[in-house]
């Protein structure tokens, strides 16, 4: 167990390191950095000005040297200043992280709360009309372009019915809990519609597989009440693989949802990363990416551990060689 965990940890750290380097180089490779754009926009800008600003922002050195400097500082916990916001990168990041966590967490919770009963229900009546209907709904959610769905929701609920705000984080001047909740409804709705289908389908498949297992059939034959059976035996086993899937989407809690955030002016990680990358804001982009990627890797790792912990049949020895 310990060997497996440390092995994975070391590997994951290597992935993080390589990725931060790759992203650093990629951002550096993007043509048209902000200072180039200033030259294009300002007729009085001289090449001396450009050199001066590049030096000031530390953009004049070779990219590898810059990366090394950044890495050393980051290892000591100094993530530097965001170039575009002229504030410490963490100061920009943390509130966004919180917002994203709230939005994505709520939608994940809601998706699971809908997906589990719906999936079980469909699995108990495979290939029935109800199953087909659930299937339809699931696939419908997965298949809608998210910005289109967001726009339709805004038009319906904010413009036509005027029930909910069209976007933003809070009513300016009011900042109660209830007020903030209103602003969450539409983005959470859009995200949930998009993700509930995948989970439901997964629960359904996993449940159907469990129901075919011999021990369930035996229990059924022995006359264990079918409802109890479902809850106590089948559901528990069927939900095990779901842990993996939820673990895999753990990263999303930190990386946000770009399109939904743009459409609802939600200040989340997705939009922040997008802007940071477009604005050549190395420090902000990298610290955000490190958070999101670490979360994904930790999620994968926890999913593996959770799988083992919940399912005594999977041994670590087997997993570590096969995973």
């Amino acid at each position, binding site marked *: 167990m310990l060997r497996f965990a440390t092995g994975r940890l070391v590997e994951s750290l290597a992935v993080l390191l390589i990725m931060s380097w790759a992203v650093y180089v990629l951002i550096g490779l993007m043509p048209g950095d902000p200072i180039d*754009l200033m030259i294009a926009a300002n007729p009085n800008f001289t090449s001396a000005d450009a050199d001066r600003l590049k030096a000031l922002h530390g953009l004049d050195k070779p990219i590898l040297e810059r990366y090394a400097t950044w890495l050393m500082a980051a290892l000591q916990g100094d993530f530097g200043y965001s170039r575009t916001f002229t504030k410490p990168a963490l100061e920009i990041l943390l509130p966004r992280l919180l917002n994203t966590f709230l939005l994505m967490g709520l939608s994940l919770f809601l998706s699971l709360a809908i997906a589990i009963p719906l999936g079980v229900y469909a699995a108990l009546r495979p290939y029935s009309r109800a199953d087909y209907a659930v299937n339809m709904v699931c696939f419908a959610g997965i298949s809608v372009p998210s910005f289109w769905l967001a726009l339709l929701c*805004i038009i319906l609920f904010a413009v036509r019915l005027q029930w909910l705000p069209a976007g933003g984080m809070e009513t300016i001047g009011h900042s109660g809990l209830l007020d903030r909740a209103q602003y969450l409804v539409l983005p959470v709705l859009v995200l949930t519609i998009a993700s509930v289908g995948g989970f439901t389908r997964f629960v359904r498949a996993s449940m159907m597989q469990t129901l075919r297992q011999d021990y369930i059939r035996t229990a059924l034959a022995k006359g264990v009440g079918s409802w109890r059976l479902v809850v106590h035996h089948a559901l528990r086993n069927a939900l095990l693989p779901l842990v993996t899937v939820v673990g895999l989407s753990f990263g999303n809690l930190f990386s946000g949802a770009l399109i939904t955030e743009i459409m609802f002016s939600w200040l989340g990680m997705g939009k922040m990363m997008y802007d940071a990358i477009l604005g050549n804001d190395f420090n902000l982009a990298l610290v955000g990416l490190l958070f999101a990627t670490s979360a994904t890797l930790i999620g994968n790792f926890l999913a593996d551990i959770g799988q083992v912990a919940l399912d005594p049949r999977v041994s670590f020895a087997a997993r570590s060689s096969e995973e």
Partner: protein
Amino acid sequence: MKKFLSALLMALFAWTGPAGAKDELVIGISQFPNNLNPIIGSMLAKSYILGLARRPLTLYDAKWQLTCMLCTDLPSLEKGTARHETTADGKPGIAVTYTLRKDAFWGDGTPITTKDVRFAWEVGRHPKSGAAGRELFTRITKIDTPDDRTFTLHINKRTCDYQAINDFEILPAHIERKKFADPSAYKDHSAYETDPTNPGLWFGPYRVVKVVSGSYIALERNPRWWGRKPQFKRITIRAIENTAALTANLLSGNIDYIAGELGLSVDEALTFAQRKGKPFKIVYKPGLIYEHIDLNLANPILKDRRTRRALLLGLDRAGITKQLFAGHQPVAHGQTNPLDSVYNPDIPKYAYDPKQARKLLDQAGWTQIRGGIRHNSKGDRLQLEFMTTAGNKSRELVQQVMQSQWRQLGIDVRIRNQPPRVYFGETVRRRKFTGLAMFAWLSSPQNIPLSTLHSKMIPEDANGWTGQNYTGYRSKEMDKIIDDLEVICAPDKHRALWHDMQSLYARDLPALPLYFRANAYILPKWLRGVQPTGHQYPSTLWAENWRVER
């Protein structure tokens, strides 16, 4: 019970409706400013917001006249407040004297003095301060401050527009001086970043009271403002990037007004107005945004002036602006706007004339038509690459119309668009476009086109790719006119030079003029006094005149 429920529901949803009492105005714009320091970097969203909370020393007003805002009078050679002098290294220079308004105070009650002027100059010219536009600050060699309100700038270059120091943004020395102790950290440590709600940073009719980064900035009336008392107690600027979401917010009452400076494009505003525009007053203000196509003059096809003229004659620009922009974006015949006082109405114009265009193409040797496309006797195909910013719907729309119109003349135009940062930061700036590049210039009135037309301004490796003469236009005649425009200031001669410049441009056509872009202001019917300027100085600079009228 029912009553109680409905009361509860009302309470729940009451906040989302349009606010009742109108002492608050919420403005939607499409971009959030990166920072609020007036000297560090420039962007439209920032100057829009700063217009409410600060005032420049001089600027062009809504009538395109140069005026003083923070000073009392423009300097003039006649009055003796400006005089020619020789710089230390023997070049012609000029000394200009301004006086600050007596009633000008920072929001915390500290009077605005020449100390602030001097401090801003120090910051602006310091190589490590991170100031973006240092040109003016470095041109000033010395500042004399005989008293707290009078200052004389010694400028090492003599130009006709010596009165304008529009880019000179003052800074509150009493707050910022200590932040500037380490100049290279100033951009991060400035109070504009660390403490933006400090009233001492602002001196406009409003001052910033809350900044929610990426979302909104709230401003309230500044009690120390010297001018007319603004009617709105509070103005909030909200940033919503997606324009469909922006209009939805307007319709749902989250915002009252979409700014013209940074809001919808004209075609977006038109489609909005068509079905949803009734409750709003929509003002289209054409201005100094010159939409045009730069031609790569090194391209053998485009080298021939006849071909360039044929390209322009083959475009139905009047039709395009009529159909796509309801005529709100006037056709441009050159880069000088007809509203500009130096405009020359008698320049060659190229109205839509496909017959003439075909004739010119024939003359230029593009006579053989194969598969609908012209070829010359060498067998070269009349094919050009046409680039612009990907994702800009207005441009993409116009671009496709033009492609279609040119194809009818037998010109094969291939569209290849790039994301803005690649396009502006690399392709246009380093003149990597092979044929046509569409974009716009935003300028102030009477802006001498030195950087776009002078042959010394062609970006190349030797000058570090600076300058904006992207077409590679070289004309001795044009160089001379531009050089003269800077120094020959006698009104008649100066005007004559402007006229010559415009006719030469229209004859040579280094770029194809398309139209002057308009800003679309989506105003609520009850809002009065918003005066669009049509140039780079935003309407917020006169926000104290905004009124509610029912």
